[in-house]
């Protein structure tokens, strides 16, 4: 009995829907659309379950690694006057220039840190490989100013362990889509289109592992994201010994702040994965998306990056190479003159060729 008192809303126009005793169906008095009672109940259930499950994107467990006594004794900290970067290295390595902005650094004293990294991917590629990669990076770039190539001091390349937060999570999801199937046909007088509306629901889970988010504010996020992917199967437990000969940075962006970036990426991938299972429709539009994250874990990791800065025409350019895979990234300056030379040169060549060709065709030469 109680069921009969429930008000249903029309999925088509949102109006209050009534039972039509003549039709033995639910009929919307506003838009005249008819529904089976069963269909409406199911649809209502879907709507309710959507409302009952608010979006949750909280990361659970925090990393809690602590330095052991004496572990940081051999580590020194340098501070950059210019960008404020804090560089950590062991006593055997002397940093003279900030790897992020290229300015001279000064020794600040002994290292004091909050968190001990959980894991580290050791450098696989040495400085020579980085120099070669840089040379390759400049090669074949026709719009690169010539002077930029010759004036560069690639000796300034520094191997830096960049702090990353690695997020693991299981994503539980329920997505409701409004989908349509359109069929068209015609007779002698009319063209017909039949649009069938569906409420499509997909629920389930998908897991993500080691989504890296750069915890260092000195390096732009898009630069570190461009270095992806890292092979985390080669990650090992952190030992200070790995720092020997390299610089390291301390994280200055907290795990909570980084979580937002990871959330957005998980959300987008989850939606894409589930939407790809909705097939056979003409249009598919998500109506409600509920994503709940569980078993969230964050790790603190140091990832190997070769960094190089250079200043050209008053602008600073930062280049980076993935110290594990050798992927080299960094935007290069453009020679505006060369741009127009190529633009107009190709335009003139193509135009003349076309003109010649058209004359040959016209005059049947």
């Amino acid at each position: 009995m109680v069921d009969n008192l429930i008000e249903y809303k029309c999925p088509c126009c949102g109006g209050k829907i009534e039972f039509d005793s003549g039709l033995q169906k639910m009929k919307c008095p506003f838009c005249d659309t008819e529904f089976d009672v069963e269909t409406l109940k199911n649809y209502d259930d879907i709507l309710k379950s959507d409302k009952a499950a608010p979006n949750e994107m909280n990361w659970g467990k925090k990393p809690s690694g602590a330095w052991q006594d004496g572990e940081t004794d051999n580590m020194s900290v340098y501070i950059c006057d210019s960008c404020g970067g804090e560089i950590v290295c062991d006593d055997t390595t002397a940093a003279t220039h900030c790897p992020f902005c290229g300015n001279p650094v000064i020794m600040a004293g002994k290292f004091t840190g909050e968190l001990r990294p959980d894991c580290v991917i050791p450098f696989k590629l040495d400085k020579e490989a980085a120099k070669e990669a840089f040379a390759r990076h400049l090669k074949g770039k026709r719009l690169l100013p010539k002077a930029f190539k010759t004036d560069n001091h690639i000796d300034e390349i520094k191997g830096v362990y960049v702090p990353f937060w690695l997020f693991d999570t299981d994503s539980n999801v329920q997505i409701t889509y409004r989908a349509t199937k359109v069929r068209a046909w015609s007779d002698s007088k009319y063209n017909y289109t039949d649009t069938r509306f569906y409420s499509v629901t997909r629920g389930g889970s998908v897991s993500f592992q080691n989504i890296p988010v750069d915890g260092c504010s000195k390096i732009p996020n898009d630069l570190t994201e461009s270095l992806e992917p890292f092979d985390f199967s080669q990650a090992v437990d952190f030992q200070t010994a790995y720092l020997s000969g390299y610089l390291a940075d301390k994280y200055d962006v907290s795990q909570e702040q980084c979580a937002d970036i990871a959330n957005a990426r998980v959300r987008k991938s989850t939606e894409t994965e589930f939407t790809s299972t909705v097939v056979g429709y003409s249009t598919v539009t998500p109506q409600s998306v509920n994503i709940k994250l569980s078993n969230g874990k964050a790790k603190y990791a140091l990832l190997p990056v070769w960094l190089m800065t250079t200043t050209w025409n008053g602008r600073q350019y930062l280049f980076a190479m993935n110290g594990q895979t050798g992927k080299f990234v960094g935007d290069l300056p453009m020679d505006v003159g060369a741009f127009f030379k190529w633009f107009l040169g190709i335009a003139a060549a193509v135009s003349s060729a076309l003109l010649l060709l058209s004359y040959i065709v016209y005059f049947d030469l």
Partner: protein
Amino acid sequence: MRKRFISLFAVFVIIIVAAAPAFASKDTSSDAETPHHVIDDNGKLSDKDRAALEKSAAKVYGTYGVDIFVYLSDDVIPHPQSAGEKIYDSKSYVNAAVIMMCDPDDTYVCAYGRASHIFTSDELDGICTLSEGQKGYRKIFSKFISEVGERLNALGVQPIPEERLLPRLVDDAELLDGDEEGKLLKKLDRISEDQQLDVVIVTKYSLDGKTSTQYADDFFDYNGYGFGQDHDGILLLIGMEDRDWAISTTGKGIDVFTDKGQQYMTDRFVPYLSNGEYYDSFVEFADLCDEFITRYDETGVALDYGDMSERKPSAFEFARSSIIGSIIVGLAVGFINAIILMRDLKSVSSQTDARTYTVQGSLKITTRSDLFLYNVVNRTARPSNDSNSSNSRGSSENNGSSTHYSSSGESHGGSSGHF
């Protein structure tokens, strides 16, 4: 003396004998040229009546170019239409005729040739009923002849001359100077003679209250333009009062210049008219006509909308479009290439998803429902092919020429507009 008289007589006789066939033949030929408008199988008309009827029928023919016959049969006519057709066909020089046929039971009026396009069947019935009301065959026929004459007069029908009365260029609106007029007329004459299809250009200030199409059709018909029996030709009329232009096509011209073909032509020469460059416009028109006719004669198919792309453009047109086209394409290719080279310098971009970090095989779908809610059927009317009153002729619906009849009953194609 007697001998002399005999020889003189003999010469006279020889002359007479020799001249007799000439007189005789002249006599028969004039007999054949005289149309017998009255055919009286019944002998109910007196010679005087017949002569009067012949005279009034001949007058109508002379004034309007439409012949009139009356046929009095002593037998019942089973198929009046075909009986009339026989009479019409036997007078081979006639291309328009109205025939009244009377048998002991009934009276019929039928129209043939151009006349069938001048009078509707209702009008013919009207004439028949009016004439039948008279007493006696003489009165019936004379009423019939005068009624047809009056109606032709009201419609402004005139006889179509056998010969062309005016030159192929009539510049009454004085749009061309003497030099231009001479050159253009020469060109029109050359094209017309070569192609055996009259290409005529007429400029007028006022169109005397007619539509431009009516005026162009009538001007063509009543000035005897057109080659051959079908009066093959095309006429371009310019009316300066309302800045009208109209094309009228006749005979083979209807097949050569289809609706789409004319549209193409007007797209080419009307812009010149709008700029006041009348001579250039007329030259363009004449050249296009020449080209269209040549193409029709070569292939047997009219240049139509779809063929326009196949038409070889003039060297100037070609140079203009190929230079502009090449420069545009060249600039586009050059720009795209430069942008590609520019993008080469960019290697930094954000990652927006976590696809790479999906644990393989971890995607589990636990809920899967595809619930049909409702459907909406929309119906839109298909564009229908309107059947309008004008006829069409040609290979297919889209490529043909639409035709209409002018006041003289002649069939014309054409188009019109303002500039």
